[in-house]
């Protein structure tokens, strides 16, 4: 469409600014956070300007050929779903970029940090805007790579490095599985364009490869979104600096899996396999994260587990897939982004200003950090699902969406109760109280560090009172994009006294009980389960250890310096392969009837055989090489008998040369018997392979000679040598006439070889002269010294 490449330009511009970030940081210094935030702010504004068109049901599609031969395009599509995600990425990105400027103030590596952070943001935008599976995958893996460097940013400690690698392996590994799924999907659907694939869902759902596609793509999505049993990388990735945790590990990257599932659900969804895979993974994630959260006292890890609960909820809702569940999913997604990012940033501010993330070590911070506390409270109430905040609206919708699945609903209520506990531990406990307890003297965070979280939290509050602000313009089109058709719904803060409201009350009551009994439960669990290594984490560790063990075993078995070992394997394998082929259907025809030879032929053959046996039985190397020489000369004599003097002469020359060269080498070898160099089993293996190989090649030779011989060349030269070349000696005619160019080439080769030999000789003579020179010099020195004495 004319002038429509601007979405792609926005993404590419983000990459460009990312690459320029180090320079910008050097120029802007401490204000670089504010300066760089102009990029995500601008993208946010640009996206919002398209809001009305998207709300009207339009989707903005662009396509730039990339590898057109393979149907791989840089296709971009901005529809309801993409818009919500892109707004989240750019909007929260603005807050994070500003926040990071304060958080990492004066950090030596700030240029690199912003390069990676902005590149991540650009890649993330690419993921949610791509309309082509392959370009989506490219951006997807780019988020993994940039996240790897961002998680390992504080690389002084071992944990940080290990977590970075773990996150990379789990997500990039899942991503590769997803690539396999994409390739099969592309093959089945005949295109990599997502919108074309979605338009013909039956072709995919009905295909026999559907299950493989679902599992492979699901693996990518579930690892990225840290679903059970791959959830463990997310809490460990909290080793990253807080801006990274807030951005990658709550608001954006972990939602990429959710996005992919939502995006592909029109094509892949709606089947029992889809339902069970996603609801089970989501519910298991919620429950596992909910129970593991009870063990935590680190504010960031607590928030990481609450993120897992939210991600589980989202995946579960996509799995259910009804219009109600999908609408709830979209609203929950936005609600979560609006409260979780501020909570993370608040936890980071507390860590930054008060020196600890241990929620039990902090008290009374609210007195010195009032703005931070208010932000934490507003965001926290939203996270806990309390009115009048947007989190409440989202949770009510989620409950309603699950009415038809009571078991899943129960799991969500239990997990939401844990959420209330987490909110208490992160947003209330460290701030409340009269006395201040903190490792370092706390003070209020600077403007750059409270503005972003405060604005986001305020957004949650405003939308709580007025959810209709984004209802029809953003939420409904997004749900429509997932469902494939428009299902209008309205967002209300107050639904009246409904079942959902009652369940909310139950949730809060459960949460209060948890808050009340937290300390004893927490202490009891911690004392009992420290060193607990079962489950998925243990599985990952065991897998890693197993891979290393396998690699060690394989390296030990295969990596030998011994030439004989190599020969054994190569020859053994070749004989096995050919033997396999031959015995598969052994129809090798050969003719053993030959006319009896003369007696002297037999004498020579016996000689060759005896020489071979003698070579085998020899104790000294000299005997062995001489025996081999005898065998070779014997074969040359056979050539003479069968009227092939040229072959025979070649063979004589080669045999003579070999015996001379080997004898020269033998002189330089240490003395010793051949027997000592090998033991019985080695000889047995070598003998078996040799006999098998010999037998096989004998049979093959017989089979080849049984086939008719093509004598057309012989007759041609016989017939043509006199009429065409005026020569009676056929060999001469062939050399100087029929194959004159060959002969010319051979002469050239000789000349080249001679000049090479000359260069070598000249060099070695030159070197000898150098040697003499140095000797002279040393002599002179010696003389001088003698003279001096």
């Amino acid at each position, binding site marked *: 469409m004319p002038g429509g490449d601007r979405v792609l330009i926005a993404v590419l511009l983000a990459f460009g600014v990312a690459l320029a970030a180090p320079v910008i940081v050097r120029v802007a210094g401490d204000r670089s956070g504010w300066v760089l935030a102009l990029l995500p702010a601008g993208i946010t504004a640009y996206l919002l300007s398209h809001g009305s068109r998207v709300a009207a049901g339009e989707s903005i599609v662009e396509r730039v050929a990339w590898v057109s031969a393979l149907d791989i395009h840089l296709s971009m599509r901005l529809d309801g779903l993409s818009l919500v995600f892109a707004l989240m990425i750019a909007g929260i990105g603005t807050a994070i970029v500003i926040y990071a400027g304060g958080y990492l103030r004066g950090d030596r590596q700030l240029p690199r940090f912003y390069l990676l952070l902005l590149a991540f943001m650009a890649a993330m935008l690419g993921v949610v805007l791509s309309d082509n599976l392959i370009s989506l995958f490219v951006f997807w893996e780019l988020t993994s790579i940039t996240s790897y460097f961002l998680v390992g940013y504080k*690389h002084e400690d071992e944990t940080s490095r290990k977590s970075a690698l773990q996150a*990379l*392996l789990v997500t990039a590994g899942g991503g590769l599985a997803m690539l*396999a799924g994409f*390739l099969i999907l592309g093959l089945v659907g005949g295109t990599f364009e997502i919108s074309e694939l979605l338009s013909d869902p039956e072709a995919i759902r009905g295909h026999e490869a559907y299950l493989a596609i679902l599992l492979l793509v699901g693996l990518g999505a579930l690892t990225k979104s840290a679903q059970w049993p791959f959830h463990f990388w997310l809490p460990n990735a909290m080793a990253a600096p807080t801006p990274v945790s807030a951005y990658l590990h709550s608001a954006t990257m972990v939602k990429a899996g959710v996005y992919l599932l939502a995006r592909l659900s029109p094509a892949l969804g709606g089947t029992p396999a889809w339902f069970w895979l996603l609801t089970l993974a989501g519910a298991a994630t919620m429950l596992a994260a909910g129970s593991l959260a009870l063990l935590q006292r680190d504010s960031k890890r607590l928030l990481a587990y609450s993120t897992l609960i939210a991600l589980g909820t989202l995946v579960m809702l996509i799995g259910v897939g009804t219009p109600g569940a999908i609408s709830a999913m979209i609203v929950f997604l936005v609600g979560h982004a609006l409260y979780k990012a501020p909570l993370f940033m608040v936890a980071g501010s507390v860590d930054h200003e008060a020196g600890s993330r241990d929620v039990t070590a902090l008290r009374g911070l609210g007195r010195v950090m009032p703005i931070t506390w208010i932000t934490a409270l507003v965001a926290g109430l939203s996270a806990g699902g309390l009115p009048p905040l947007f989190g409440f609206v989202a949770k009510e919708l989620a409950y309603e969406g699950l009415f038809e699945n009571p078991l899943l609903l129960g799991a969500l209520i239990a997990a939401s109760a844990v959420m209330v506990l987490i909110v208490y531990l992160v947003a209330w406990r460290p701030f409340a109280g009269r006395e201040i307890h903190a490792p370092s003297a706390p003070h209020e965070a600077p403007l750059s560090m409270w503005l972003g979280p405060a604005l986001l939290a305020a957004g949650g509050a405003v939308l709580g009172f007025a959810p209709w602000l984004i209802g029809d313009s953003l939420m409904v089109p997004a749900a429509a994009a997932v469902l494939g058709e428009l299902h209008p719904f309205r967002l209300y803060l107050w639904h009246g006294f409904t079942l959902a409201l009652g369940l909310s009350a139950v949730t809060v009551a459960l949460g209060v009980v948890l808050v009340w009994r937290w300390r004893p439960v927490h202490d009891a669990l911690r004392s009992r389960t420290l060193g607990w290594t079962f489950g998925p984490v243990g599985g990952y560790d065991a897998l890693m250890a197993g891979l290393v063990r396998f690699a060690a075993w394989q390296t030990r078995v295969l990596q030998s310096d011994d*030439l004989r070992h190599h020969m054994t394997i*190569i020859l053994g394998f070749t004989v096995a392969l050919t033997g396999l*082929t031959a015995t598969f259907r052994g129809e090798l025809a050969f003719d053993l009837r030959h006319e009896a030879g003369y007696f002297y032929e037999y004498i020579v053959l016996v000689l060759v055989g005896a020489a071979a046996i003698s070579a085998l039985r020899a104790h000294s190397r000299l005997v062995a090489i001489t025996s081999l020489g005898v065998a070779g000369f014997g074969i040359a004599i056979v050539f003479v008998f069968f009227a092939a003097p040229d072959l025979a002469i070649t063979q004589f020359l080669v045999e003579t040369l070999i015996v001379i060269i080997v004898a020269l080498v033998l002189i330089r070898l240490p003395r010793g018997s051949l027997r000592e160099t090998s033991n019985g089993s080695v000889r047995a293996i070598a003998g078996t392979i040799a006999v098998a190989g010999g037998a096989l090649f004998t049979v093959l030779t017989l089979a*080849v000679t049984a086939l008719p011989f093509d004598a057309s060349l012989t007759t041609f030269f016989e017939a043509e040598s006199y009429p065409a070349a005026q020569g009676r000696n056929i060999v001469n005619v062939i050399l100087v006439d029929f194959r004159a160019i060959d002969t010319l080439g051979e002469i050239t080769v000789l000349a080249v070889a001679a000049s090479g030999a000359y260069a070598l000789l000249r060099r070695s003579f030159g070197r000898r002269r150098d040697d003499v020179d140095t000797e002279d010099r040393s002599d002179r020195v010696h003389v001088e010294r003698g003279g001096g004495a």
Partner: protein
Amino acid sequence: MTLPADFIVVSILGPAIVMLVFAMITLLFAVFQVDRSATASMALVGVGTAAVFALHLLMKGQQGAAEAGFGLRYLGDTPATAFTLVILLGTALAILVSEADLSRLGLDHPEYYPLMLLSATGAIVLASAGDLITLLLGLEIMSLAVYALAAWRQGSRQSEEAGMKYFLLGAFASALLIYGIALTFGAGGRFDYAGLAAAFSAPGFDAHVLALLGAVLLLAGLGFKVAFAPFHQWLPDVYTGAPTPVTTFMSVVVKTAAFAALLRIASTVFASLGAGPLGELLPIMLGILIGATLIVGNFGALLQSGVKRMLAYSAVAHAGYLGLAVLAADTVGTNAAIFYLTAYTLMTAGAFAVLSAITNADDRGDEIERFAGLAARRPFLAASLAIVLMSLAGLPPFAGFVGKLLVFQAAISAGYVALAVLGIATSVVAVVYYARVITYMYFRESDQETIRPLAPTLRIAVVIAVVGTIALGILPGFWYGLVERGQVLLAGF
């Protein structure tokens, strides 16, 4: 018996003849003891001239006017010329690395560049072969020179052992190959691929078993050169023992040429056997080799503490990925392999170039600890190595990713889903060992001495490799499009 008018076509021999002529010129330079950097420059001029000829041939292929000579025994079609260009690229990079490294290593003997050019000549012949005898000629010309180059560090046991081992095992593999040629000739009565394919798919053909056995031996002989497991045994020792510039040359040029030959045979001779009885046997065997290669290469690299040896095993692993393209045995597979090998040449040469800038004069000191904190000391080298390693790991947006994507796609659309999935699974292992080096460079502090300044030619080599890796990754369409629009002779059996 008269020869057809277009039997002798000299133009397709252009690149090989140019390389041969320049090998002679540099040899004369050696005789008259001309300055070594002048010899290197002359060698580069030769490579450039040959590239002009190859480009001309490539353009002919674009117009559908690809030529072949000597009765389809020497080919000038798009795959042959594209592989020739890749070989020339690899040779140029190896010369640049050599020029920087040889004098430092004390290895700048005059016959080095002539040998390298001769080996590249053989590689070009091998890549253009349309006949088993041409194949053998190219293979031996290429190999004999490399045997000598591998043992270049005279007086070093490791290097001499490398050369000797490579020579002995190589001679052994050649014997297998020649036996395979003999059996194939015995079964089909021809040496040229076109004739063989026609004979094997002719209605009355009854020597299937013999032809298959010949094919298996051909596969074993070529499998040695491309380093399919378990024929890869020589590779780690030889790559580690040879001087790094020679390792660079071997890992890119020899591999490219051997794969070019294997791909051509697979898509003609092997493919024609596929339709006959027991036709499924050959793909099964190739599949076994490829599976073993993927596992052995990737897991072998996992535990290496020396980066050079890790790269050697990773070269084995990449043979496995390229094998997937061979298995596809069609034009799509060949095009995928051309792209993959272009990317592989750039990123492997880049990795070895950086390695040679870091290691000691005797090529030791490639332990991974030495890379600690490289990002702080030498940001350019660290970033370059990180990019080529990420590309080798197959991560986007680098060339290696596009290459892997193409071969996986070729394998999947040819129906080898299980092997493609194995390839993808072992790619995860590859991420581990490549990322380990990056982790050391970026996430660890350095306690190492500062490294010597980077030689200008080495910098050029690194820049070419890195820029190429990124450019091919972001804009793969240009090169792939050229290859894809080209013309393939001998196809369609």
